[in-house]
């Protein structure tokens, strides 16, 4: 698939769960260029997950807009797919059925579904589990199925809401690397919400720090690192330290 991603434009986005309730975040502005991996870092409660839900069309903003290549996001669509902290697979289905369910909703022909599902399951290294019930898989494998379920739709944007936080360190590291690599090869924009600085450094091209109540974007930092990155690399450590300090200052300044 020869694609280069989409221009993401978040303009003056504001959200409040009720008209009299507290404002979750206020006038958030954000741009992300085609094919970029953007990490949104923040403490719990700063509104980053809510922001992601709005970007997925699962929640409506109180004000402002989100556009992908100038097309406004108003409702959920398989073009902007979200992966959650838990995989939320359908436990009565096998791996291949879970992966292909979005294509079934889109009324794809059976042979086309089979072809795309096989290709995507191979991409996430789950070929031998294609006919297994998803309840028989480990946590990491289930997240790979959730990833495959998203990728099979060939989305323009993939939104990740702390999808690796419940996994062990080895599985997390493996998935972080694979997800970035797959997104880059498929030309998909990635937007990752995380509270882990390490994850942001290992996966992102750019990181924004969200802090305060209501949440606001406080800082933006370029993560200019090679494609092959490990936590032990000196360059990775340097950026990690810079990000950590910036995050600490941004969080302190709001209190």
């Amino acid at each position, binding site marked *: 698939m020869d694609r280069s991603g989409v221009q993401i434009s978040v303009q003056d986005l504001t959200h409040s769960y009720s008209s009299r309730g507290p404002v979750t975040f206020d006038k958030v502005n954000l741009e992300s260029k085609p094919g970029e991996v953007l990490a949104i870092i923040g403490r719990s409660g700063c509104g980053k997950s809510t922001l992601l839900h709005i970007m*997925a069309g699962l929640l409506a903003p109180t004000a402002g807009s989100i556009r992908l290549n100038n097309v406004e996001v108003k409702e959920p669509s398989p073009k902007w*797919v979200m992966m959650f902290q838990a995989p939320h697979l359908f436990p009565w289905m096998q791996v291949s059925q879970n992966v292909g369910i979005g294509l079934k909703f889109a009324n794809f022909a059976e042979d086309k579904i089979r072809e795309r599902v096989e290709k995507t399951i191979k991409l996430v290294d789950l070929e031998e589990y294609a006919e297994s019930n998803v309840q028989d898989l480990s946590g990491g494998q289930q997240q790979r199925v959730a990833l495959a379920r998203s990728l099979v739709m060939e989305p323009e944007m993939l939104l990740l809401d702390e999808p690796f936080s419940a996994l062990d360190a080895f599985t997390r590291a493996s998935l972080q690397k694979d997800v970035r690599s797959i997104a880059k090869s498929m030309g998909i924009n990635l937007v990752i919400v995380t509270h882990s600085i390490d994850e942001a450094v290992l996966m992102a091209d750019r990181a924004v720090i969200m802090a305060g109540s209501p949440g606001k974007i406080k800082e933006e930092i370029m993560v200019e690192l090679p494609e092959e990155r490990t936590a032990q690399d000196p360059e990775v450590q340097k950026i990690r330290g810079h990000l950590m300090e910036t995050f600490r200052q941004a969080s302190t300044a709001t209190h």
Partner: protein
Amino acid sequence: MAAEIGTAQRSSVAVDLIVMVLRRVLFSAVGLGILFALWWFGGWLLESNPATMSFADFGPFPTIDAVPYMVQSGTLLDASLASGYRLGIGLLLAIATGIPIGILMGRSNVFRKLSNTPFQFLRMVSPLSWEPIAVIAMPTWDQAIIFLISMAAVWPVAFATAAGLAKLDRAWFKVARNLGASWWDILKEIILPAIAFDVMTGIRLALGVAWIVIVPAEFLGITSGLGYTIQDSRENLMYADLAVTILAIGIIGFLMDGICQALIKRFSWHRN
């Protein structure tokens, strides 16, 4: 060597399985044997007492003697088919009504709050209390009986369906919407498969209730069915035929429940 070990392991598993099945069969056989013994004892007590001697045909041996006639004359088959027809239609109506009601109760807070008290009230009304209304409202006796069966069976189906919906992971709907599912997709691909186990459990309960209701319901002005056969046997003092009919009711009910259990197992995706 590895092949020999594999064969030995497979043989051991097969032996364990046979022992388990035999154990189950043995326990069931002993249990039924105890029941038969109690039945025989009851029959002996009836026969021993001059005041109750005329009811001695309730005992097991007169009953067994009456079985060939009841089978060969077609009495049992005709009665079973007539009751089966009414049960089947009544149950289908209960399922067709109960599942949508259950889905509404599960999906709509407003509907659940509005309907909970009236439904709980209606559920506690003995199904046979509706008999006078059924007889007035329905044009035929058959339809009156089917109405009673539906009134008995709808509540287990509705409440089990609602309970199944309450257990659904809300995130599944979020995922489905995100992947572009329509409301029909969500119903067909998410809700129905997810609640199939609970619905089947409700249907099993409904079947049990309906099977209990059908016999007294068939005491109404009809001339077919297992309930009618019991009443007819009683009125003609044919107690052995009555006991055979009771046996048939038990066996048919047991088999239907077994089918339900197999279906529940088939639809169950739960691992715990």
